[in-house]
């Protein structure tokens, strides 16, 4: 079985500090107004003071979200120019910005709002799982900087990997499972 790289994010550990967002922006020189990674609250908003429930039984968790590197990537299927494609050897969904025509079909197809666009030429941008870093046995910048060690990255098809062990030992689910895209960000219970 070929590798399938994926993220495992521990919602119990995430404190919504946005350090991963900043690391991502710095690593990829993401310009103002664009993003590759967002931290949303449990309502899907980029605000952080909105717990659910009634006092004193309040709860809140944060959901870091980026490209989910779906096995059945709807963006790649919708793309008319092969700008987006899924790498066979590790399952990362890649983006070749030179081919992008700015049609935004990928954004319409993506269930996770994970793609942003340049203001002038409209070219798409999204998380590449720090492909340049993992090529050299590194980890994605977001996983490196997370101060609470909430973000893990590895081969979910390798039973000896840390991500597989976390998935085997904790309750987890993916976002919008019913959409059928087979996303590869797994969230551990908050």
């Amino acid at each position: 079985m070929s590798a399938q790289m994926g993220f495992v994010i521990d919602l119990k550990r995430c404190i919504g500090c946005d350090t991963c967002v900043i690391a991502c922006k710095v690593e990829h020189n993401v310009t103002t107004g664009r993003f590759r990674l967002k931290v949303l609250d449990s309502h899907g908003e980029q605000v952080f003071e909105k717990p659910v429930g009634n006092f004193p039984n309040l709860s809140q968790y944060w959901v870091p979200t980026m490209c989910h590197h779906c096995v059945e990537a709807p963006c790649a299927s919708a793309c008319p120019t092969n700008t987006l494609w899924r790498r066979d050897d590790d399952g990362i969904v890649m983006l070749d910005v030179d081919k992008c025509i700015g049609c935004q079909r990928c954004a319409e197809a993506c269930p996770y709002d994970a793609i942003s666009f340049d203001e002038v030429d409209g070219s798409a941008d999204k998380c590449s799982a720090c492909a340049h870093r993992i090529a050299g046995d590194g980890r994605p910048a977001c996983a490196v900087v997370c101060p609470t060690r909430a973000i893990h990255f590895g081969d979910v098809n390798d039973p000896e990997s840390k991500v597989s062990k976390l998935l085997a030992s904790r309750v987890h689910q993916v976002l919008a499972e019913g959409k059928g895209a087979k996303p590869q960000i797994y969230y551990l219970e908050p």
Partner: protein
Amino acid sequence: MVAGNLRERTVVIGGGQAAGQIIEAARKGGYVGDMSLVCDESLLPYQRPPLSKQYLKGDRSRDWLLYRFPEFYKKCDVDVHLGRRAVEIDRNVGFVLLDDGERLPYDKLALAIGARSRRIDVPSVETVPLYYIRSLVDSERLSAALQNAKKIVIIGGGFIGLETAAALVQQDFEIVLLVSGSQVLPTVGPKIADFLMDQHLAHGVTVVLNANVAKLDRTTQNGVAVTLDDGRTLDGDVAIVGIGAIPNVELAKNAGLECDDGILVDALARTSDHRIVAAGDCTNHPNLHLGLRLRLETVHNAVEQGRTAGCTIAGLEHPYIQSPWVWSDQYNIRLQSVGVASGYDLSVRRLSAHQDRYSEFLFRGDRLLAAICINQPQIFGAVRRILNGRIPLAPSEAVDASFDLTKLLERAQTVVFDHPWPPRPPRRGPALIWGFD
């Protein structure tokens, strides 16, 4: 879901994006029958728009053009026949005859046979080497001819002519662009056309309007002399022609399928024989938004109608009901147009803080028909969704740059877990313990 059966055979004829998309959509839709792809070119289905842009500049490889990588066809278990031409369809027996005499039997057939360049029809045309841009071979043949050329005459002021002019003038060729009408790009309206023409003039292209070619001759230097109907003569080392395209319908017509400016299909891409679907430039299809039939030569049409055709093969219903869109890259301009502009009676311009970023909105009465965006991809994306969703947009809202068009669109919910999380175990003690024991 599984569609079809293991003994069922589908033949796809074509070498563009529609052919690739038909295969992809059919397999994703659960189609399990045998699939064959017949393509008369030597390359797997590829993208044609870069042929007049990046590929012509010579900075891209053949593989870069591919619509899907070779592994895709292996994964989809497609029997690929490259460099083979389908010459006949026998609907009674159900087979496709190839140019080498081989018969490919089918239960379902998909036609994505595209269009061909319209040939210029003037006296002595056969004595003059002319270059068209439709296929990879065309583009490479032109690139070879450009090696010894300096002055290029381009006949036609449509997308192909303008994009080719932009690509070549930036490589220091001397360009003369002959436009038969009073403006370039007749489909976009005079304001955008004038803006584009100004861009070409500023980059050094000589644009000749109302230039109708009367005669072509070979010059003594092996170049081309173009004589216009007003008697003017323009010389060039190479002449490129981009005067439109003609749908390839002969294969379908000879098989008895209904054709009228393209192969007639319904919203599910079915031809008059429902075992045969067709998609892309070769089709004439109903646009349910506009209430009329269209034949489009656009990437969007090829991909989306191809998706519909693939779903139909898989037994799914995915009607093709979308507003058409097209894009063009010239210099540092990205033009994106959505909708059909014909019949508008009001044109309003939405400006921005930047002179080279604006959009024209075209209305008939209060109804938005189309928008043409210059370097405003966000506006384009929003308008496409507005048109597809049939969301009302007033001219006063369209023209107001402070009015956020995306507010009219439904915002997708992005954090949705399908199952509730298990309740947290109760705390063993107080949440906070102050001080020291």
